[in-house]
């Protein structure tokens, strides 16, 4: 039984790591621009395919070819991850300029529809390029199962957990200790005052969308060897990541990451009990948290000014 519990914990942490990265992405844009990117899931899917395509191109395989026969080396994996992050980051800026800035702060919620629309365009483009079938992606440290006290996991799951923790640590440090972090917090607090203090609000917002979308690309790249690259995988991850953010508190990056991990572990533990109850329990919990703590477990109280 201990073995099963430990196994569920490891599986849950791996799943939770993916949710946490997505939750952090939601938090970054929300705190700085008070908007959310509803196409975040499509950015995750697209990131996985960009990473895969870079690997295919670097190894000289056709773009829609199978990666099964390929030997992908560390260098190619490194280039792939940086390009995936960069491309998705730039796309995030495009999203901000075309679908968020024209509508943000205006009455109505046009940005909700425009970001969803951006995602649909992204997915349709992806379907035209890569087709609907999921594609297998090789893990940088191989497919073998690592055994530890009778618990089995793959290197990619460990990598995902570690990368999430490192990213969270770096982000936390940047936000609290650096000038750019202080500027971001100032913009989050009040963009007009921040502008008066000489902070380039527009640049901060562009940066927020770059980082948030880059994180989506990173999570897509990290998830692909676990869940295979698919244009339909992002939606589920984004929904759970968003739920993690709601539980932890959308305005608190640390809370978002914790919320993501909690959700992953919870899912895995419910599977150990009755898998068919998983979605019911998870979303009941989200509703309960929102009912009693509308800003999430770690969120700060926020006053909307109209």
């Amino acid at each position, binding site marked *: 039984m201990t073995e099963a519990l430990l196994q569920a914990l490891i599986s849950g942490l791996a799943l939770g790591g993916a949710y946490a990265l997505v939750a952090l992405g939601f938090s970054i844009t929300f705190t700085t621009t008070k908007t959310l990117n509803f196409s975040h899931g499509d950015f995750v899917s697209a990131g996985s395919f960009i990473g895969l395509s870079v690997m295919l191109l670097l190894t000289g395989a056709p773009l829609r070819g199978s990666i099964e026969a390929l030997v992908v080396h560390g260098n190619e994996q490194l280039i792939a991850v940086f390009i995936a992050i960069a491309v998705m980051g730039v796309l995030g800026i495009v999203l901000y300029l075309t679908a968020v800035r024209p509508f943000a702060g205006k009455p109505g919620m046009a940005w909700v529809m425009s970001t969803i629309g951006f995602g649909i365009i992204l997915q349709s483009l992806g379907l035209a390029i890569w087709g609907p079938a999921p594609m297998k992606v090789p893990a940088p440290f191989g*497919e073998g*199962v690592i055994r530890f006290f009778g618990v089995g996991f793959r290197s990619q799951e460990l990598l995902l957990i570690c990368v999430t923790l490192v990213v969270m640590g770096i982000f936390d440090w940047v936000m609290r200790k650096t000038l750019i972090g202080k500027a971001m917090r100032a913009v989050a607090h009040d963009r007009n005052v921040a502008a008066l203090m000489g902070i380039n609000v527009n640049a901060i917002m562009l940066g927020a969308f770059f980082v948030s979308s880059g994180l989506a690309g990173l999570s897509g790249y990290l998830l692909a060897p676990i869940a*295979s690259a698919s244009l339909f995988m992002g939606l589920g991850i984004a929904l759970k990541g968003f739920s993690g953010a709601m539980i932890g508190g959308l305005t608190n990056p640390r809370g978002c990451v914790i919320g993501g991990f909690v959700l992953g572990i919870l899912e895995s533990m419910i599977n*150990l009990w009755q898998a068919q109850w998983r979605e019911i329990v998870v979303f009941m919990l989200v509703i309960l948290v929102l009912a009693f703590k509308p800003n999430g477990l770690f969120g700060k109280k926020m006053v909307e000014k109209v």
Partner: protein
Amino acid sequence: MLSKFGKIITGSAVAAALMIAMPAVQAQTIKIGYNSDMSASGSAEFGLSALWGAEQAADEINQAGGLLGRKISIVARDDVAQPPKAIQNTNELLDNEKVIALIGSANSGNMMAWLHLPQQKKIPVISPIATATDITKRFESTGENYIFRVSMIDRDQIALIVAYAVKATKNKKIAFIVDSTGYGQQGLKDLNQVLALHGLKPAAEEKFGGKDTDMTSQLSKIKASGADTLIIYGLADANAYVLRSMEKINYFPITLGSWANVNTPVIQLAGAKLAEKLIFTASTTETSTPKAKELNAALLKKHPKMTAFVTAAQSYDAVKLLAAAIKQAGSTDGDKVQKALENLGTTDGVVKTYQKPFSKTNHEALSVSDFHFAQWKSGRIVNYEDSVTKAITPADLLK
């Protein structure tokens, strides 16, 4: 005797008449509609292979002089796994293309969505892929049922899988793991009922979401139940993740599955080695018989990427049976063809030689006695036989 001018006139007249007659000759082509997913879902490979099988049968019939002195052609439409598109395709095939029969689809749900249209218009349908038990049953009580099938049937596959499991298990502990889609849920119901016919209850029954990638929690519970035999009932991609999760917890009981595992995602996602751990049902494989080998070679020459030979073979047989019925009826009239299908004599096919394949009360050309086991071996599907498969007798095939 005609003058030169007269000759020219008659010549032109004959030529003109021929030109006018040409479209009429083309209109004489016997059109068979094909409506299935060929691009979007996990079953798209099934749909594409079945189209190629049907086209191969049509080509062979045309080379042998056609049918009732006319050529036959397959008019194909992709339903992209969406019921509304499938219905739109069916209307278009029936009303614009004036097809005299329909073949399809890869997804049972899609097929259920459009079946009533040909039934109302008295156009015979043969399903060479979809397996839901209800497909041929829906219009059974209306008197004239136009829906036939040359494919595996869920309940019959389960009868074979359970028969194997009961014979293979040493401690009488058989566990189920099924996906939460309609396919898995119906499968679970049938699995429980058939296992009960053998006087047994499952040692554990677990569920997983169709998009899940980690089933270690569920498998840990099954492992703890002590089951030495596991039946996986889900679609290809998810089944691959069940296998990957089994590897994680190092639990490899005897593992059985349905023909959903014929799809390549199983080997792409699980890897060739892991995929070999699974044995699953099939009506035919490319190595079953000399005829199957021959058809497979012919199809691979035209379509090197074809993967699901089993649906190509079933679809090939469906067109052959349809052609035999049209010949017997001496007409393409739907009503007459339906009667002929119900009264066909011996007809040669690739899956088998059919002896009176259909009757008024039976619209299934294949049944559990025609099914056997298959397995992935070095990236291809081959027949699977062991002491257990050889020991299964018709009396074991309870359903």
